[in-house]
């Protein structure tokens, strides 16, 4: 009887080992996706308008090259999880979006292909693409974003985050429109917003506000223009505990609590300021190129202006970017790189994507014509280009190994926004916690690069 039990266990173990060996074979065999010689899988994310625009571009690619592309689209907030699951399950799509912040770990883990040479063979004119965009996906093993690094992706786009205003509202209030070249100072901006904040239908409740800023997306520009930054230049020291940063954060908090030019935090939480802006109840609101297709359908006129500037007098804001990367294990590297290059730099493809109102041109020679067309809203499209060329920067966590240290900045920030804690006190408290997490991220980065 004992013999038989032993036999049962051996059988079971044998089968298990067989099953595991099967898994191992798959790993060794590389990409197990359905890729045939002329089929690619492309995984990306975006709004409905973006999905439609990219599907059209891909159909054109298939018509031109005969390469069929299986498209996997996800919603923005599920993309990272789904991509990781695909990678862990050894089903890496051939071509996929890669975030600036994930590039290093994907390179070090052998997920992303070094496409430097193939892009050169395809004669892609990299000097005709925004340098910020291309450099975002260069990585030399230690530093990302440097012009000398190897290329691991091409920019899908660059996303300058501009400040916008409701032109219809400002005109109705008799306020002179903001200068296109000279940014408001914070004081000027506050006083304009105070004039806009009022009860328009005399029912006793304020129903029009100056602005309504989400701290997660708007503190950057205000802090930078005030001379503050999150880290030192080589991203080793957290530097948020400074008077300049405190002023910027306090300025945002005071808009709600002291100057009262924004919906209160409970009002903002019930109907977020994005919805209120679209309803025409908010004077100033940040605008990215991806918003344009939606905002052009609104029933008021809007335009772009320089970000209001702090003590340096120079505006600042962030430029987002998503890259298009190619899998290390793709069965069809040439076609895959061709697709990435097509989506990021083909002249006709770019015209289509720009016309869809989801991005600004990545190609320098198209940018001028784009900005010159003042008939299409927003009229001051030049502002987007100014940000990319002049005053925009990468997000603080774009080139660090993990964004945990940066997320920590926002985790417990609510008391400052509610006015129950001063910005200076908060920053003093949060800086050491952020430093710990940044140290960890840098140690992990070193570790991962060494393991290559």
């Amino acid at each position, binding site marked *: 009887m004992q013999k038989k039990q032993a036999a049962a266990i051996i059988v079971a173990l044998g089968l*298990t080992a067989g099953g595991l060996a099967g898994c191992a074979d798959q790993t060794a065999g590389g990409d197990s996706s359905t890729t045939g010689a002329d089929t690619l899988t492309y995984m990306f994310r975006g709004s409905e308008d973006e999905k439609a625009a990219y599907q059209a571009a891909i159909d054109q690619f298939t018509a031109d090259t005969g390469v069929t592309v299986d498209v996997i689209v996800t919603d923005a907030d599920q993309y990272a999880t789904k991509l990781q699951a695909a990678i862990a399950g050894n089903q890496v799509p051939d071509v996929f979006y890669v975030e600036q912040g994930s590039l290093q770990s994907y390179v070090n883990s052998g997920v992303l292909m070094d496409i430097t040479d193939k892009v050169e063979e395809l004669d892609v004119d990299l000097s005709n693409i925004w340098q910020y965009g291309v450099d975002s996906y260069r990585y030399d093993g230690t530093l990302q974003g440097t012009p000398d690094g190897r290329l691991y992706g091409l920019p899908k786009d660059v996303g300058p985050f501009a400040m916008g205003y409701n032109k219809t509202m400002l005109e109705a209030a008799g306020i002179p429109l903001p200068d296109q070249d000279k940014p408001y100072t914070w004081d000027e901006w506050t006083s304009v917003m105070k004039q806009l904040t009022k009860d328009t239908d005399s029912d006793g409740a304020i129903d029009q506000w100056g602005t309504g800023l989400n701290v997660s997306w708007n503190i950057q520009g205000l802090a930078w223009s005030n001379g503050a930054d999150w880290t030192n230049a080589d991203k080793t020291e957290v530097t948020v505990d400074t008077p300049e940063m405190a002023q910027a954060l306090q300025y945002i908090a005071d808009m709600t609590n002291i100057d009262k030019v924004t919906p209160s935090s409970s009002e903002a939480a019930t109907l977020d300021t994005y919805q209120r802006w679209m309803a025409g109840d908010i004077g100033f609101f940040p605008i990215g190129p991806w918003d344009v297709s939606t905002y052009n359908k609104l029933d008021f006129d809007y335009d772009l202006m320089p970000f209001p500037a702090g003590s340096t007098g120079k505006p600042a804001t962030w430029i987002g970017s998503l890259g298009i990367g190619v899998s290390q294990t793709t069965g069809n590297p040439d076609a895959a790189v061709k697709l990435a290059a097509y989506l990021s730099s083909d002249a006709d493809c770019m015209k289509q994507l720009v016309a869809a109102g989801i991005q600004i041109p990545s190609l320098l020679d198209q940018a001028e014509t784009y900005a010159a067309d003042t008939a299409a809203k927003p009229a001051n499209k030049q502002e987007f280009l100014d940000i990319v060329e002049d005053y925009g920067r990468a997000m603080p966590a774009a080139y660090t190994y993990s964004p945990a240290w940066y997320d920590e900045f926002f985790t417990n920030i609510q008391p400052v926004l509610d006015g129950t804690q001063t910005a200076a006190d908060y920053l003093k408290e949060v800086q050491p916690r952020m430093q710990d997490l940044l140290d960890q991220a840098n140690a992990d980065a070193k570790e991962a690069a060494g393991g290559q």
Partner: protein
Amino acid sequence: MTTATKSRVQPRRHSQLYRSENRWALLFVAAPVMGFLLFTAYPLCFALYASLTNWNGLGRMKFIGVSNYIGLLGNANFHKALLNTLFYMIGIPIGLILSLLLAMAMNRKIRGRTILRTVYYIPVISSLAAIAILWQWAYNGDFGLVNQALDLIGIQGPNWLQSTTWAKPGIIIMAVWKGLGYSMLLYLAAIQSVPKSLYEAATLDGASGSRQFTAITIPMVQPVTFFLIVTNIIGGAQIFTEINIMTPTGGPELSTASAVWLIWREAFRYQKMGSATAMAIVLGLIVMIVTLIQFRLNRNSSFVLD
């Protein structure tokens, strides 16, 4: 065949059948054993190892001993998430009491009780994601159904999901509502299987309704209560979907972040699979210990009908 050959063959045939049955038995046994080894034992061992490494989920795993566990000792966010998870458990006794009362009600011959039973059971079979989105709307501070209802009785409701005080109770209310039908159904079955003779005897002895409830009904449904407590605690420790949908950033100041939500963020947003696995193992151990304690307590207090 002659009897002689029969008697000679018989033992062999018997043994063949015996062996063949045994082979079949082995196969049947092998299926679950294999499943266990492949889908439970192997991942468990792998997780134990992963929790001792620095690993981003994709690349090389570097063995770092118990550093991940030591890191958890000082990780305030993880402690907060564990406490939040514990806080969510408040919903379990509330849910049990409500569902037992409901089951008592449904056990009576009231009009439309089939419809009522169905109504209470609908949330159980509905998709959790859909329910979470609906409740997210219901909890909207200005226009939400919940605050509109409170307004009718003159109460100014809080801004549920944006408040550090009310976000967790809000999620508990939803979870209780969602689980009510399931517990109710089990209790209903248990109540209906209590022998009528017990109540008849109690009535003859002059026991009041409430005395019958505490002395007969509650002890008789105790196995169901025990089952529900154990499964609810295990399930409650893994609460994730409703948190992630209703408060995608873990709520104000991580006030709704459950342990599993934090593990998910650590693994997939921060790509720290090693320390996320260590968190998961700590959570698993806590659940195991709590469950063992429950079994112990239940053994001491189990009700035996002599």
